């Protein structure tokens, strides 16, 4: 039902024709419902993976539900399904009202909605099937990546930009700036981190290798947090918090500084994810420096948010929406203090690979993104369903259960992370590791993992309460929604003249003309004009992000000294390539790193520290970001092939406290030898210097498989399991890959041409002397 909302606009003063318009709240309802649905899914899968860690044998016969496959599903669902739909919900509601205009195209809005849901479903299907690129938060394979690009930029980006261009409010409110930064930066990140060489619909290899791949991934990974989980939620905060408090934002100037600081600084900070790795030192230091600089603007934003509630704190005690917002903004402050702290190298040396990072991430995701989303949806419910909220008490209960759930989750996991970091590095007085057995650390933190399950369950329960409230409120909706119709004139192309003062106050003062011009210029009217021009504003934001990125990326890729080559490092054999793909597909990187840092405790535990030149054939890199299991960078040759065979079959048989699930299905599944030439050709295309491998990949793979299988059988393994011969099993390929890990660096160097020539000359010189007596 259309309701006319008249305005006091006099067309004669604007010189434009009056237009009628209404806001599209149907799309907001769609995204709000999707947010809630995927919020339940993401947190239930999160709870499931938390349970799998304490009960690793729960799904041992179902490979689709292993931790390595489900964890990416959880992270993708939380980021792109739950937070993603929340962002779109916020953008579609607030943009229309801030622009005083309906979204430019209803069709694009719907294409965006359904396209995004389809992408999420595709992710939910492919990730458990082991179809993955293995790059954290960028696991989805290239056809889905293409769909993301089309939906994000083609549908959402175009619709948003056109709405800005057609807006009826002269000034673009700061929330819109945050949305612009989100759209352009995520596009840039997504495209450049996902440049791959496909060999099929479900398999591709990144064009980058090793150090460079790691650098690109964490440039993306960190900024996915920045521009997907931070800037759009700040836009949300700057719109919905003033709305809920019914007060303007505390300091608009601070919000502008907050915006530009994040755009300028965030993009540089990615390398702090790679401290003490084989990444060049300069990049690592740069990442740390800019991460530390992020602290101030982030806290400026937090303070701005909290002070917006000045004079309204009494409302916080009774309004569940404000309660969610206050806790959300507080968690933003905590997470953005902790992030810079974790980027300090010495702190990172302790925290990296431990559960500390997991606690930090969940403090941000549950506390900041979760609470802000819940606050927004509770605020929206009565408005989009045009009725009362069904139960404020239930909303308050959700708030308390959710808050307690977050605390019960993060506090034990902080403790677990510190325990891991300290136990891994603890040395006794004789200079040996106090805890040489990795599994001892796992046994120690197990009680904390149980507590995490309780905290996670509470958080899930809170969302379910919200779902009940949502459905019940929806049921109370009117038979037909009212659609207020507004009237306004289009904006004139030029702003009213009185807003642009181009005459200096220094005119009557006897100073140089240059000073007068400087006075006019420094009024920044030119910048004010930019703020009104969405396309130019977008281009400038993109430039800020791209230039900063290039200053880091170009040297990393072009300076040879960043990745010194090692003569003995050779490309993987065809069978090892197949094994590596299984490693990627099973998501082994979710629990095992492949990066020995140059620290005494690490080299004592794992062996020689990793060098950049060791990873030049790694497409994608497999350094990982946490250690639920030990590092595997030097795993080659540490255990026998039969040990690995048994370990895959039943890890608990070899170590009763192991939390690794059974990979018996790899023993029972045949290698697809026919696909191996594709893998070899792709590796060759990306730089591996293959020769015979290009024509005899299958034969070479089979020969190596026979050798590995013979090794296994000679040590007590069976010749076949059911219908599958050991030499045909996927486990053999994976074992071949694992036995190669970290061994090249110790291989004797092949003699150079000069050395061969010298050796031949020496032989020639020696031969006549030895031969002479006989001939004589």
């Amino acid at each position, binding site marked *: 039902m259309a309701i006319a909302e008249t305005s006091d*606009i006099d067309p004669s003063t604007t010189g434009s024709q009056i237009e009628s318009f209404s806001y599209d709240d149907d799309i907001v309802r769609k995204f709000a419902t999707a947010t809630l649905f995927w919020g339940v899914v993401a947190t239930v899968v999160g709870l499931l993976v938390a349970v799998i860690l304490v009960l690793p044998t729960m799904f041992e016969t179902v490979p689709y539900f292993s931790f390595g496959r489900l964890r990416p599903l959880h992270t993708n669902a939380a980021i792109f399904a739950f937070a993603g739909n929340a962002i779109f919900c916020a953008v579609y509601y607030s943009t229309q009202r801030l622009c005083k205009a309906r979204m430019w195209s209803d069709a694009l809005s719907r294409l965006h909605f359904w396209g995004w849901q389809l992408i999420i479903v595709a992710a939910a299907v492919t990730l458990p099937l082991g179809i993955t690129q293995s790059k954290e938060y960028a696991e989805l394979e290239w056809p889905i990546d293409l769909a993301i690009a089309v939906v994000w930029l083609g549908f959402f980006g175009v619709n948003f930009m056109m709405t800005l261009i057609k807006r009826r*409010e002269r000034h673009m409110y700061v*929330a819109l700036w945050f949305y612009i930064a989100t759209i352009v930066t995520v596009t840039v990140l997504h495209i450049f981190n996902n440049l791959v060489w496909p060999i099929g619909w479900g398999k591709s290899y990144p064009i980058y290798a090793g150090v460079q791949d790691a650098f690109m991934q964490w440039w993306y990974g960190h900024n996915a947090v920045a521009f997907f989980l931070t800037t759009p939620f700040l836009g949300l905060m700057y719109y919905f918090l003033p709305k809920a408090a019914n007060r*303007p*934002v505390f300091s*608009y100037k601070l919000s502008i*500084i907050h915006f530009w600081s994040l755009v300028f600084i965030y993009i540089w900070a990615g390398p702090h994810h790679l401290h003490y790795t084989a990444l060049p030192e300069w990049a690592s230091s740069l990442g740390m420096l800019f991460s530390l600089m992020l602290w101030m603007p982030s806290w400026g934003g937090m303070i701005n948010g909290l002070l917006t509630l000045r004079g309204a704190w009494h409302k916080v005690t009774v309004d569940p929406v404000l309660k969610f917002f206050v806790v959300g903004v507080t968690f933003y402050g905590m997470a953005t203090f902790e992030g810079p702290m974790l980027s300090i190298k010495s702190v990172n040396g302790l925290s990296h690979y431990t559960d500390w990072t997991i606690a930090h991430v969940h403090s941000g995701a549950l506390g900041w993104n979760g609470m802000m989303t819940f606050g927004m949806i509770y605020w929206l419910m009565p408005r989009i369903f045009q009725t009362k909220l069904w139960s404020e008490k239930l909303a308050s209960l959700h708030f308390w259960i959710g808050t307690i759930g977050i605390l019960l989750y993060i506090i034990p996991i902080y403790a677990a992370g510190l325990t891991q970091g300290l136990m891994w590095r603890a040395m006794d007085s004789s200079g040996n590791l106090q805890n040489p057995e990795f599994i001892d650390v796992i046994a120690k933190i197990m009680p904390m993992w149980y507590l995490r399950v309780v905290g996670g369950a509470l958080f899930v329960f809170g969302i379910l309460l919200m779902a009940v409230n949502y459905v019940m409120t929806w049921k109370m909706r009117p038979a037909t929604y009212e659609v207020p119709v507004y009237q306004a004139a289009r904006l004139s192309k030029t*702003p009213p003249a009185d*807003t642009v003062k181009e005459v200096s106050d220094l005119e009557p003062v006897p100073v140089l003309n240059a000073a007068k011009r400087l006075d006019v210029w*420094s009024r920044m009217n030119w910048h004010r004009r930019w703020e009104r021009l969405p396309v130019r504003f977008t281009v400038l934001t993109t430039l800020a992000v791209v230039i900063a990125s290039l200053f880091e990326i170009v040297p990393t890729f072009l300076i040879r000294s960043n990745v010194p080559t090692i003569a003995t490092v050779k490309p993987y054999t065809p069978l090892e390539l197949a094994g590596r793909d299984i490693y990627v597909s099973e998501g082994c990187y979710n629990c095992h790193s492949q990066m020995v840092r140059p620290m005494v405790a690490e080299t004592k535990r794992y062996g020689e520290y990793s060098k950049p030149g060791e990873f030049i054939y790694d497409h994608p890199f497999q350094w990982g970001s946490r250690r639920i299991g030990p590092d595997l960078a030097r795993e080659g040759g540490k255990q026998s092939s039969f040990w690995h065979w048994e370990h895959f079959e039943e890890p608990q048989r070899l170590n009763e406290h192991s939390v690794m699930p059974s990979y018996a299905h790899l023993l029972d599944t045949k290698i697809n030898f026919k696909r191996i030439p594709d893998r070899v050709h792709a590796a060759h295309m990306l730089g591996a210097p293959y020769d015979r491998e290009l024509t005899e990949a299958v034969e070479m793979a089979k020969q190596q498989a026979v050798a590995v299988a013979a090794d296994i059988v000679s040590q007590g393994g069976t010749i076949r399991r059911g219908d599958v011969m050991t030499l045909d099993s996927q486990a053999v390929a994976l074992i071949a890959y694992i036995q190669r890990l970290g061994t090249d660096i110790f291989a004797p160097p092949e003699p150079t041409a000069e050395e061969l020539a010298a050796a031949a000359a020496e032989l020639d010189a020696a031969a006549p002397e030895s031969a002479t007596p006989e001939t004589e």
Partner: protein
Amino acid sequence: MLKDVLRAIDYSDCAEAALLLFLFAFGLMLVSTFRLSANATNKFASIPLSDKVQDPRHE
């Protein structure tokens, strides 16, 4: 060839240039923000509070 040229460049200068660029742009933004009049910022800050079209809709 482009690769060789880029590789021949001394990137230590570029790092300093980047820092100067950053400081310049950041400084510009700070000056611009602090020169905003209280009247303008109050007006901008109250944009989200009303869904109705304000007229005149300029600063």
